[in-house]
């Protein structure tokens, strides 16, 4: 009898599995009719079996994907996951990219603003017709609340974008209750005072991390804010509808958006870890948008197959080889210069990226405010490099460690391998050491990484975002394992950000760039790249974000059937 019982159990288990599987199937049938998404794009051979990514109730949504699930939609608590925030929140100001590639700061939640002569006081006049997605009206109090929260809430990571505001430090270490530099003048006017002039302040405010929250909703949500879609409220063009961890995020159009509702009903963001899968899904019409940066090897094929569906924009970022001046023999400027001269950057750019980008000779990325087109080129000259090495006392080269993060992209890994082999040509034996990410970061932050390859992309469109990050303070230069020895230059970098006069400021940055990158050869600038996206045939209006981030705003997107 027990045997019978066990058999019954086993059989019912199997049956349950089959049933649940069938249940899934019938649910599937319910949605196949909505397969219009699948009919799009170049996959003409579609036999009708492709099933659109979106599940029930998401017909006509834009189908996009991310490689990894987001951590939170609370933008104050993430330094990676901007896609959802970019679409569900608004910032005070925004950056717009013109046809010619130049970018400008434009109004968003703030209709207009004035900056005082000394560059210390910013007065923002806010829109009075904005409501949050829960119906609450947007007022100056929300701005105050949001910026205060950045310094007081546990787990926020983006305070550096706002810490120029007077009283920020006090608020952070608990000696003040409120952000003293932020004053609510009336419901629709906010006055912000900085502790010292900061030319890039508006650019910083335009960054998604400075999105404005609804005080009431955010307070009510508590720890659930950013984690539970229903309570994660913003004023943006899309509403955070649902989040199935590791599977998909759904954003639905905000019908009451102050700037008019978006033209697409919503966005389904699927989590597809495998980039090869992403490419296949795009080709079979299951995705409307494919980020070619995450799948560089598909670029040639995709651009060839869908030449009219490629949207491209420059990445306001540069890849660098970092060199630690605290490590022998990298403390010798001749050695650093030799390394600069040993890497054939143009060839790597041509071969790996099909030349889609620009070899950089300085710190700043092509497209950044203050970018210097006319920097002298760093020539590829292995013979000269050998001579320099001999001069520095290393005629037979030397051995140096290059630390790599094991979670690096395959492209990055290839680049380190190529650099290793190129440096071997001039006698430098590069040992690539793989660290897991946290050890890599910790070693780097401790200033002990001899060499590494990394990139920096602008958070806000200002040279300060590059110079200060790497050279602004002793601490900054240490945590990037640069350990800049020239303290005079460091002081100049710190001074530059306080200069009010734009021309003067940018001129100083240009000088500093020559000093740091050419004279002192602090790092090897490699290139800035173009960010390519492939869109489906029906998808129009998509724009690469101004800095070339992978995360995109979908408000401008529309379908052309």
């Amino acid at each position, binding site marked *: 009898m027990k045997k019978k019982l066990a058999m019954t159990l086993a059989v019912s288990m199997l049956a349950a599995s089959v049933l649940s599987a069938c249940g899934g199937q019938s649910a599937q049938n319910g949605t196949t009719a909505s397969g219009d998404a699948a009919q799009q794009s170049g996959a003409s051979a579609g036999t009708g079996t492709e099933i659109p990514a979106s599940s029930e109730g998401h017909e006509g949504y834009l189908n996009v994907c991310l490689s990894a699930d987001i951590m939170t939609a609370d933008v104050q608590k993430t330094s990676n996951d901007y896609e959802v925030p970019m679409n569900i929140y608004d910032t005070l100001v925004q950056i717009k990219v013109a046809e010619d590639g130049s970018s400008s700061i434009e109004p968003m939640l703030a209709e207009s603003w004035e900056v005082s002569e000394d560059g210390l006081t910013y007065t923002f006049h806010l829109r009075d017709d904005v409501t949050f997605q829960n119906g609450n009206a947007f007022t100056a109090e929300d701005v105050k609340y949001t910026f205060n929260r950045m310094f007081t809430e546990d787990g926020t990571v983006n305070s550096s974008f706002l810490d120029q505001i007077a009283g920020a430090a006090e608020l952070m270490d608990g000696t003040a209750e409120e952000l003293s530099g932020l004053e609510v003048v009336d419901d629709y006017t906010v006055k912000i005072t900085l502790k010292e002039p900061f030319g890039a302040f508006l650019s910083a405010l335009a960054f998604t991390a400075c999105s404005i929250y609804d005080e009431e909703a955010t307070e009510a949500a508590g720890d659930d804010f950013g984690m539970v879609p229903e309570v994660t409220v913003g004023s943006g063009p899309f509403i955070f509808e649902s989040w199935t961890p590791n599977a998909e995020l759904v954003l639905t159009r905000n019908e009451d958006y102050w700037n008019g509702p978006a033209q697409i009903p919503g966005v389904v963001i699927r989590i597809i870890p495998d*980039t*090869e899968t992403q*490419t296949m899904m795009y080709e079979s019409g299951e995705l409307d948008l494919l980020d070619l940066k995450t*799948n560089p*090897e*598909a670029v*040639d*094929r995709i651009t060839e197959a869908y030449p009219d569906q490629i949207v491209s924009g420059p990445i306001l970022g540069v890849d660098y080889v970092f060199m630690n001046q605290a490590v022998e023999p990298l403390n010798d400027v001749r050695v650093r210069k030799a390394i600069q001269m040993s890497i054939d950057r143009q*060839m*790597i750019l041509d*071969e*790996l990226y099909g030349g889609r980008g620009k070899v950089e000779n300085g710190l700043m990325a092509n497209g950044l405010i203050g970018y210097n087109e006319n920097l002298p080129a760093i020539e590829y000259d292995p013979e000269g490099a050998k001579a320099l090495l001999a001069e520095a006392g290393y005629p037979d080269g030397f051995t140096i460690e290059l630390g790599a993060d*094991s*979670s690096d992209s*395959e492209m990055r*890994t*290839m680049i380190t*391998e*190529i650099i*290793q*082999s190129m440096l071997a040509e001039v006698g430098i034996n590069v040992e*690539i050491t*793989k*660290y*897991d990410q946290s*050890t890599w970061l910790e070693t780097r932050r401790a200033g002990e990484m001899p060499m590494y390859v990394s990139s920096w992309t602008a958070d806000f469109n200002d040279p300060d975002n590059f110079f200060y990050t790497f050279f602004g303070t002793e601490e900054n230069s240490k945590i990037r394992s640069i350990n800049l020895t020239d303290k005079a230059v460091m002081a100049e970098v710190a001074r530059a950000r306080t200069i009010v006069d734009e021309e003067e400021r940018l001129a100083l940055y240009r000088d500093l760039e020559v000093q740091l990158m050419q004279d002192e050869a602090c790092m090897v600038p490699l290139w800035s790249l173009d960010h390519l996206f492939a869109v489906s045939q029906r998808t129009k209006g998509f724009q690469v974000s101004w800095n070339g981030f992978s995360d995109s705003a979908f408000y401008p997107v529309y379908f052309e059937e």
Partner: protein
Amino acid sequence: MKAYENPSLESEKISGGQAVYIDQQSPFYPEDNSADIGESDTILDKILLLVRQNKLAVFSALVILIIILLAVFAPVVAPYDPAAQSLRDRLAAPSAEHWFGTDKLGRDIFSRTLYGARVSLAIGLLPTLISMVIGTVLGLFAGYYGGKTDFVIMRLADIMLAFPSLLLAMVVMYTLGGGIVNIFIALSLVNWASTARVVRAQTLSLKEAEYVEAARSMGVKKTTIIFRHILPNCLPSLIVLFTLNIPSAILSESSLSFLGVGAQPPSSSWGLAVTEGRRYLFSEPWVPLVPSAAIMILVMAFNFLGDGLRDVLDPYLKEQ
């Protein structure tokens, strides 16, 4: 082989349990066996039998041998330096110059595959050997001493077996970090338990054998009994187990590499080559397919050889 880790069976019968003592007289052809092959069969005899009987296994052994030779003489055979890059020739299709084409950095895939064989063979052989030595010693002691020793060792084995092996290896790699040496450690640590179980079960039955009883009554030292009298009788099963464990080690390496916690570039393990090459499955299929074919050939060869060895060495599975 995993199939024999069956806990409920261990006291009943385990592959190769009473290896040498089983009654060789099959009712169907008593004359054949008792008269000629008989009980005095050595492992060598049985391997000779295999050579005559199972062409596939012999062929597999030959393939393995060739791969070993190629790996050993890679510097002689390989037409190129496996690390030499030639960016301009990257992803070149197979040609007279590059038999299997070139990879994403313009390195010769044929040469890399030859050198990769060293890594993959080492990963197949070394950790398997280490883990089996650990497992054998623990299994012998557990089986022979019984009691608390047995309980502790077997619970330890239970713990190891409770983990999905890949996950456990992932955790070890997470702790130690990527790299070939760490794969050795991870795989050695993970796979000893199944060997321990098999050896223990055999020891349990061999312990009762007359000649062991006799040795014991004459006062032979316990360790001597274990290693001189019991261990040799476990050897046939251990050889089979060894051959069949190698493929899983090789595959584990490729899985770990796929997940990014295995071998790290620029090393040239096959698993890593497949992983790195899979981006090119559409456009330059030779890049991932050559190393995966290499893995498959080696793994299959070991599987066939193992199956063949089991057929001749393991009386339970003797075939017609």
